[in-house]
């Protein structure tokens, strides 16, 4: 037991002066903003101040004895499919009511103010969630357990006092005042926390290595990897946007545990909002003495710099990321030596992912046992998944490890859009694999998923349906990894190019059965021969697609057919004369004028002119436009 030190306990500097009768909080995550939530937020501010009933106040800055309301922006509220999401909390006669509305527009904001806030009526048809009764979306929330996302969508990420009020920096205080670095490492080891970036390496063990290696000048680095490059994943983005201080606190705790004095937060440039919020958070944390010299009055100092990525997927690989921080081309190098021994500027360095670090303060405050009590076999705790693609409820869900894929997709995700047929789920993005319906009852656990050829990965979960072509999806991932290959090692540089060529050939209807074998063979070689994780995992989408959907590949090469109608070279559109009513709807949408026919007479598609865009197919209400 380390000696007890007397430090300053973190507390909000600006306590709430007013408890508003009405609190409106609007999702201002990237998804929310894309859906127009900024306009909605403004509509609430204006509408409430013009109501003549409420004074719109900032509760920490203004005292108000009259009836007051506050309007704040938060991070991602989870159910992105219903964005913009707006939660209204009203406190009247000692009871509080919470109602979350979805798909809110500025016009609806006016209506919500009039009927709900002023009139006391819950507008049922817009409700997504409420504490008053059950709703159809409750299944999205019921089985989630929010640890990494504990504050996301609740607090204002741009106000450090919001974080402090919600137990912010208490874990750092606990660590600095009553734990030795070794005890912190032991606690994290005991929790069973594994890296949430994809590889699933035990975090405590990683910290142990970094702590053990001596530095020539005493300097060690602690890096947070926020280069979430997996296309289709936005977990880290949401954590950085919604709870930036939790990541900073996790970094400071980790730095203390390994003896690092300097840290870097590497965030990709494609996340401008996350960058903005983390910079605001860092400045506030420095001003309050949570980051910097003699943190909380202790003898521990830790300085953090934000590094903006410049657009290179390979920089998610730890050695490439360090090259990039050093100002070089982000190219990976051979390991060993591992970063724990010789990393950034040849000093012992530890790198953790955003979600991993956001979990650290929770584990310190709630104990390793509480974390380890959740999960499955060797995969403890919870994992955040970004549900996207053809699933009804796209969004962010944090579930205990061990939940089955089917539960996540069909219970939380609500099943497939338009009730189409499920085809596959892609886990782990371009490094992962696609799994078919028959494997949906597998528990989400690092070891179990690895056995299928896919990976749990960083948490991207893209659902594809019968309208998506598996060959095209594999080609999509290969074109991604091929263009992002840094070019340093030949297996990845040449291999991914050859694989992409073959997949393109198959999509164009020029493939042969031999090509499938050839593709599989190169894929195996790239997997074994590549220098870093990018190349070693790039074949996974192709290998799993071949393993579970070989029939669809064979249809492309033998029958020259693409059932989903995606590979345009293999598709023809024609009009069924029996069903065509001559309504001209298809002819109007055809961008190239390939459809002719008089009104009320059967129409015809000119196959020479047709560019196979499918616009007519989607437009026809009589199923007369056919695809084969």
């Amino acid at each position: 037991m380390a000696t007890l030190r007397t430090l300053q306990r973190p507390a909000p500097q600006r306590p709430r002066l007013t408890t508003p009768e009405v609190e409106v909080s609007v999702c201002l995550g990237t998804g929310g903003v894309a859906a127009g939530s900024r306009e909605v937020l403004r509509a609430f501010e204006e509408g409430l101040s013009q109501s003549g009933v409420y004074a719109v106040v900032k509760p920490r800055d203004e005292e108000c004895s009259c009836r007051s309301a506050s309007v704040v922006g938060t991070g991602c509220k989870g159910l992105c499919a219903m964005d913009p999401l707006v939660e209204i909390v009203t406190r009247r006669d000692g009871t509080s009511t919470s109602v979350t509305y979805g798909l809110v527009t500025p016009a609806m904001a006016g209506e919500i103010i009039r009927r709900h806030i002023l009139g006391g009526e819950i507008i049922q048809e817009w409700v997504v969630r409420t504490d008053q009764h059950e709703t159809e979306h409750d299944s999205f929330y019921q089985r989630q357990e929010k640890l990494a996302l504990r504050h996301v969508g609740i607090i204002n990420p741009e106000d450090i006092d919001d974080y402090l009020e919600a137990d912010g920096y208490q874990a750092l205080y606990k660590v600095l005042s009553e734990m030795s670095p070794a005890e912190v490492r032991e606690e994290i080891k005991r929790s069973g926390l594994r890296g949430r970036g994809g590889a699933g390496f035990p975090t405590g063990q990683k910290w142990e290595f970094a702590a053990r290696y001596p530095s020539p000048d005493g300097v060690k680095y602690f890096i947070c990897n926020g280069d979430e490059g997996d296309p289709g994943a936005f977990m880290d983005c949401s954590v950085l946007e919604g709870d930036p201080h939790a990541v900073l606190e996790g970094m400071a705790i980790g730095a203390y545990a390994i003896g690092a004095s300097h840290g870097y937060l590497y965030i990709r440039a494609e996340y401008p909002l996350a960058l903005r919020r983390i910079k605001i958070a860092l400045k506030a944390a420095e001003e309050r003495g949570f980051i910097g010299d003699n943190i909380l009055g202790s003898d521990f100092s830790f300085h953090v710099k934000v590094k903006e990525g410049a657009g290179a997927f390979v920089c998610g690989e730890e050695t490439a990321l360090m090259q990039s921080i050093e100002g070089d081309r982000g190219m990976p190098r051979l390991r060993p030596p591992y970063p724990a021994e010789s990393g950034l500027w040849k000093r012992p360095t530890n790198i953790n992912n955003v979600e991993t670090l956001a979990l650290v303060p929770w584990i310190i405050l709630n104990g390793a046992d509480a974390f380890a009590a959740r999960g499955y076999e060797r995969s403890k705790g919870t994992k955040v998944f970004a549900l996207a693609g053809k699933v009804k409820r796209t969004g962010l869900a944090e579930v205990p490890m061990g939940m089955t894929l089917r539960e996540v997709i069909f219970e939380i995700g609500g099943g497939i859009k338009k009730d189409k047929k499920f085809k596959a789920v892609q886990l782990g993005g371009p490094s992962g694999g696609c799994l078919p319906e028959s494997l949906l009852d597998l528990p989400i656990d690092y070891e179990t998923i690895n056995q299928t050829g896919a990976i749990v990965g960083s948490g991207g979960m893209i659902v594809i349906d019968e309208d998506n072509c598996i060959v095209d999806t594999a080609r999509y991932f290969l074109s991604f990894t091929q263009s992002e290959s840094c070019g340093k090692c030949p297996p990845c540089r040449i291999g991914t190019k050859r694989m992409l060529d073959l997949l393109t050939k198959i999509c164009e209807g020029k493939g042969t059965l031999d090509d499938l074998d050839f593709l599989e063979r190169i894929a195996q070689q790239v997997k074994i021969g590549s220098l870093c994780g990018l190349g070693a995992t790039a074949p996974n989408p192709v290998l799993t697609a071949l393993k579970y959907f070989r029939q669809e590949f064979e249809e492309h090469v033998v029958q020259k057919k693409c059932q989903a109608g995606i590979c345009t070279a293999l598709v023809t559109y024609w009009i069924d004369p029996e069903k065509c009513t001559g309504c001209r709807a298809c002819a109007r949408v055809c961008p190239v004028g390939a459809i002719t026919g008089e009104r009320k007479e059967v129409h015809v598609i000119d196959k020479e002119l047709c560019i196979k865009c499918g616009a007519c197919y989607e437009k026809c209400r009589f199923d007369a436009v056919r695809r084969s």
Partner: protein
Amino acid sequence: MTAEKNVALEGCESLLEDSTVNPELKQQFLDLLERYRGEPGAVIPLLQGAQAIFGYLPPWVMKQVAEVANEPLSKVLGVATFYAQFRLQPRARHTIRCCHGTACHVSGAARISEELEKFLGIAPGENTKDMLFTIEEVHCVGACGMAPVVMIDDRAYGKLTPEKAVEVVKAFRAEVEGEEGR
């Protein structure tokens, strides 16, 4: 080493004196150089800063960056061509980024790009004649729940169809033209 750098920097000083370079931007650039002088690993932030000022990286800017970062020009050029963010050609005032992340791809991103390119009459990486828009394809902007997504500058627009995407660009154009007309 020193001799090599002198060659690389030849003509640079005169460009800094060049009256065609906007003096305000030039001052911003000089301030940026000073801010990072002597800092390790400064090449990327310097290039990012310079690109934020000039919109792209002209050769003389890269030469200045090389000098301040104390690196050979070849390395600076190597970095500038490695990362997707950097451009060696001028770009238009606003950038339309069509997201081609997985969620957007399976939700029809290709047709949105196609339609916007047709509407603007340019290919990815090109600028419109009036220098209002540059269009590019990017991998994932992190708004997968709203797929398919297009970003104009830092603002994201979600759940698009090809038609809606064109409407968004039209509305954006009308808005900026209105602002600039005032």
